[in-house]
């Protein structure tokens, strides 16, 4: 998280939100929120009665009616302000993004030459050259070269990242800047569909669709509003039979107090703010639905490497097998790693340097590097003299050696298992038909992961660790990290299979991924979090993108999702529980003039009928801005069992919702009765 985003609640945003809250009074936009629309209709009626007292025979009520009108108006403005404020924060972020987008020129490759065109003219498939200091004109894949790219415009992270052709770090985003070297990029999106465009429309909230839970809640709030409308409309005939004449503004005041204006006014702000919290966390969610789904997650699939462990598995020993010596093994291990840019490969050379091991580097000259592949699970070198050097998973190397007619030393299996059982990873090193030995790679669990998994268990979330390691290694790490389950020697297909299996049991699954081969699993998962450093395909398939490329953030995303749902539930409960006190304020006040005995129900001992009604109405209005900070910040989720959580929140927002208005209305009344 960065300061630039946090400081977005500026005076300018507040000012814009204040202006917007008046604009939002337009009935056409108000009708989308039935609860507040009813308030607006009531406000209009009271306004008419205030302006034309003669027509409504309400001459003596001018002061009271005017006050009711003003309080109602402010109820509306407060609700609008909450929404405008939430939207404003998103808009401000969008503006920052738009600036970085701007109009820029691109060096498009046409035939054999280069033509300078505006970035808006670029189409899918065009190829451009971006040199140091230039902006990348659109989303694309690097087809040639390597460069460090400043992505601070979208990630807020000032340190540049390395991007290079091929592999999982080849995708670049339009609006970011190349700070060194030169790359050739194939554009992968048409104008208006780029990642930044999507991001702008998301944070702006322009295309915000209500989530299923929001729709259901809206239905309930609307029907509660209708119920209270029925209650209020049927009251005057019944009351008049009892000899009580009810004034229209009083009825409107009761109606507005009873309908769930608090949650009705804050509902969309909660939704927008929830998305915003995700964004501030440097994660872009494609929909509110995805954030909500995050709260419902039952199973989380985490890659071991990079998420649970540091992943930079370091070579820590060479263990020869058969009749090979340690120095022979070390030599071949080094040669196989000469061009290997993976952390494991580099760690082998590093280990050699540190221990002063010798090897003949010239053997590797002009050799062909065979990169690691998920299918073969080996990498190595094809030397000029025809020898083939391989290192990789023990099983794969065994297979490869057997296939090339070699024999497997008896102690390979045993020594490999010994390494694995200690939590290490054995990498077998072989040249043609001969296995020389094992590289002992050590992996460490990130500090604090064990506690995080314990928290997830308390939330009722099952964690599954995916790793390419053999079952023994995987089991050791799984035990050390405290995950519930693991899949060893997993392929991308395994991930999809696990996701499907869990989903068939009705569970919601979350996972992270960055490679193109993760894309199908990311799409299948209910919450797929792609790394920004990952491929375009992965980002396309996922419903969230982490701009910081930190896979362990998935856990926080779940917390945010739960926080969003809790905020909605807490404010709904609070809003509905408030009704009890409001009844006790307004009902006696309505009938006390005609039936003085009703004073018994005036449990709060409010000053007068007029002050009671105004106080209840004022409380109803003021509670909205008072709760805006809670709506924006959200109720904090702390991992604990659902029963405990419910007990706590029920106490705070349920019981609190019953008690607070009694105190609030009484306090307001003590001031109001000085005038009324």
């Amino acid at each position, binding site marked *: 998280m960065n300061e630039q985003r946090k400081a977005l609640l500026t005076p300018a945003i507040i000012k814009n939100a204040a202006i917007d809250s008046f604009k939002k009074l337009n009935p056409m936009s108000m009708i989308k929120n039935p609860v507040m629309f009813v308030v607006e209709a009531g406000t209009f009626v009271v306004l008419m009665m205030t302006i034309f007292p003669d027509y409504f025979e309400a001459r003596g009520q001018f002061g009271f009616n005017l006050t009711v009108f003003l309080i109602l108006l402010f109820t509306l403005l407060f609700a609008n302000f909450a929404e405008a404020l939430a939207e404003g924060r998103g808009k401000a972020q969008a503006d920052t993004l738009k600036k970085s987008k701007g109009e820029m020129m691109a060096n498009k490759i046409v035939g054999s030459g280069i033509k300078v065109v505006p970035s808006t003219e670029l189409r899918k498939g065009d190829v451009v050259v971006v040199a140091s200091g230039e902006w990348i004109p659109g989303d694309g894949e690097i087809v040639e070269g390597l460069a460090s790219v400043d992505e601070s415009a979208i990630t807020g992270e000032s340190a540049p990242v390395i991007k290079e052709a091929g592999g999982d770090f080849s995708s670049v985003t339009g609006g970011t800047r190349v700070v060194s070297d030169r790359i050739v990029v194939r554009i992968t999106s048409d104008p208006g569909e780029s990642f930044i465009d999507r991001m702008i429309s998301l944070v702006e909230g322009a295309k915000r669709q209500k989530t*299923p*839970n929001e729709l*259901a*809640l809206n*239905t*309930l709030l*609307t*029907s*509660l509003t209708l*119920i209270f409308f*029925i*209650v209020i409309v*049927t*009251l*005057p*005939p*019944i009351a*008049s*039979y*009892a000899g*009580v004449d009810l004034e229209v503004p009083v009825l409107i005041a*009761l109606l507005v107090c009873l309908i769930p204006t608090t949650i009705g006014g804050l509902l969309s702000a909660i939704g927008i703010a929830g998305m915003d919290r995700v964004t501030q966390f440097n994660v872009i969610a494609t929909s509110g639905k995805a954030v909500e789904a995050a*709260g*419902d997650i*039952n199973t989380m699939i985490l890659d071991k490497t990079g998420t649970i462990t540091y992943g930079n598995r370091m070579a820590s020993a060479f263990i020869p097998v058969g009749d090979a010596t340690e120095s022979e093994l070390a030599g071949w291990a080094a040669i196989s790693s000469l061009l290997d840019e993976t952390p494991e490969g580099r760690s082998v050379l590093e280990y050699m340097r540190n221990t002063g091991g010798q090897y003949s580097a010239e053997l590797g000259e002009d050799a062909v590097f065979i990169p690691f592949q998920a299918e073969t699970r080996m990498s190595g070198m094809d030397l000029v003299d025809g020898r083939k050097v391989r290192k990789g998973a023990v099983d794969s190397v065994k297979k490869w050696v057997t296939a090339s007619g070699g024999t497997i030393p008896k102690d390979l299996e045993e020594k490999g298992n010994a390494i694995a059982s200690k939590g290490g990873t054995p990498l077998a090193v072989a040249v043609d038909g001969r296995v020389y030995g094992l590289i002992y790679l050590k992996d460490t669990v990130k500090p604090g992961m064990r506690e995080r998994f314990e928290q997830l*268990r308390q*939330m*009722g*979330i*099952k964690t599954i660790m995916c790793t390419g390691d053999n079952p023994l290694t995987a089991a050791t790490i799984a035990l050390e990290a405290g995950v519930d389950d693991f899949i060893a020697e997993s392929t991308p297909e395994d991930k999809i299979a696990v996701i499907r299996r869990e989903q068939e*049991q*009705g*569970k919601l699954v979350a996972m992270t991924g960055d490679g193109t081969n993760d894309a199908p699993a990311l799409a299948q998962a209910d919450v797929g979090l792609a790394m920004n450093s990952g491929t375009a395909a992965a980002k396309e398939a996922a419903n969230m993108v982490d701009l910081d490329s930190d896979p362990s953030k998935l856990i926080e995303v779940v917390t945010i*999702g*739960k*926080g969003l*749902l*809790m905020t*909605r*539930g*807490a404010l709904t*409960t609070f809003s*509905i*529980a408030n009704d*009890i006190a409001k*009844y006790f304020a307004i*009902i006696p006040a*309505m009938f006390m003039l005609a*039936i003085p*005995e*009703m004073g018994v*129900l005036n449990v709060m001992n409010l000053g007068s009928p007029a002050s009671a009604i105004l106080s209840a109405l004022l409380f109803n209005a003021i509670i909205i801005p008072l709760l805006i900070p809670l709506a924006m910040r959200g109720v904090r989720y702390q991992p604990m*069992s*659902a*029963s405990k*959580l*419910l007990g706590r*929140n*029920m106490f705070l927002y*349920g019981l609190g919702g019953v008690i607070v208005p009694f105190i609030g209305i009484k306090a307001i009344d003590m001031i109001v009765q000085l005038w009324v």
Partner: protein
Amino acid sequence: MGIVQIAIVLIVLILLVKPIGTYVYHVFSNKQNRSDAVFGPFENLLYKLIGLKSFAGMTWKAYALSVLLTNVVLVGIGYIVLRTQNLLPVNPSGIDGMEETLAFNTIISFVTNTNLQHYSGETGLSYFSQMAVIMMMMFTSAATGFSVAIAFIRGLTSRGTTIGNFFQDFVKAHTRIFIPAAVLVTLVLVALQVPQTLQSTINVTTLEGDTQSIAIGPVASLEAIKHIGTNGGGFFGANSSHPFENPSPLTNVIQILSMWLLPAALPYAYGLFSGNRKQGWVVFSAMMTLFLLFLTTVYIAETRGNPVINELGIDASQGSMEGKEVRFGIPQSALFTAVTTAATTGTVNNMHDTLTPIGGLVPLAEMMLNVVFGGKGVGIVNMLMYAILGVFLAGLMVGRTPEFLGRKIEPKEMKLIAIVILVHPLIILGPTAIAFLTELGQGSITNPGFHGITQVLYEFASSAANNGSGFEGLADNTPFWNIATGIVMLMGRYVSMIAMLAVAGSLAAKQWVPETIGTFRTDNGLFAGILIGTVLIIGALTFLPAVVLGPIAEQLTLR
């Protein structure tokens, strides 16, 4: 002593909940059980007779359609019988065909299990109508409600996509529950001296030499199904306060238990269906808590009596005995009143019109809520609807989208539930307001002032909750009241029935979400509290303004 009498009944009820709930579960779970051997052959005969060959589960639409069609046929036949009873046999007293709005009201009243009586049985119905319409509908309406409740429970709890077969449920409800129970209770009542005869009215000469006609008839059999089916239509005008209907405190207790046991056992059966008995006990305890709250209120109010009369120096040690039977006293009357409106039976052993204002508030409130045990099946369905609402409102607070018994509550269910919670206040408060706006309605009120408001509210609440008890004192056999209450009864019954079946169908088809430690639990005390809170805030507060103008204003202004 009063409290002991009440406590004994409560204890007997609680002891019987488990065996009866288990029996109901076995009857409707459609798994093989011992009762098959007893009832199977007779049922198979019935199935053959009605041509039921397939027992495959129905979709909710097919189920709802079957319910409606069966009821429509019953209404059609019943209406024709009532209108033409003068032409039909078994009419020794030569009673005329029923007037059309009254026939409309009566037939709806009985098909909806309401048993609101705007007619007088002795003069308005022939023996044939009594048997072919009234008695039959007492069975069929109870069985209909029971079947729908079971279907709803299946929808919530089964992992399949079906909610059962209506015709099978309907037949089984008769053969395994209502008919055997009615036979049993009839025999017990006869043994306790409730008349059961086809003799005509007895004419006796009194000590003063006058002649008196004492009406008798097949009373015991009607009493049995009247309570077991939570129907409530009495044999005599005075209903269960009549000494032939309800001669002793013992018969009183039997009647209380016969109307209360099945509704009270349904939550337990629901617990068995859901595979977690605690679920059932939570619903039961929420109902029982509300019930005890109401019972205490009416008992205290009636024991204290009317403060104005007490001040006059009149001995009030017995409580307010106006309109009550001496053989029952306050405890048995208060308990009967609380149970008859809780179970929406509508039978009375004392006149609710003469309860103290707060005492009268209790039956009114129980009907407005319609969830405190409730009539045949209706109570549990409504309570489970409030449970879904409670889960929806509070469930979010555990940080998950709401789910009930492993099913997500989504916009579709909320729309259907919104209809149900909207309809109930609409059909009580709407017609009440109309009644006060029109001379047609106001003209029937016999007791002006706040009590008049209670009379009208009571009439519509009784119709909407399909209770059928009358506050009496309302001259209600007029076209306005016949048609208004008729429509209210229809909507009160079928709108919620269809909507809740739709909810069941929609939930049954949903993917089941496994329970984890992060799941909102609905089988503990906290949820019972949430359930009660939801019922009170959403169900009860709606009616507060109207109730304040009725019984509460009346109590406050007693002078």
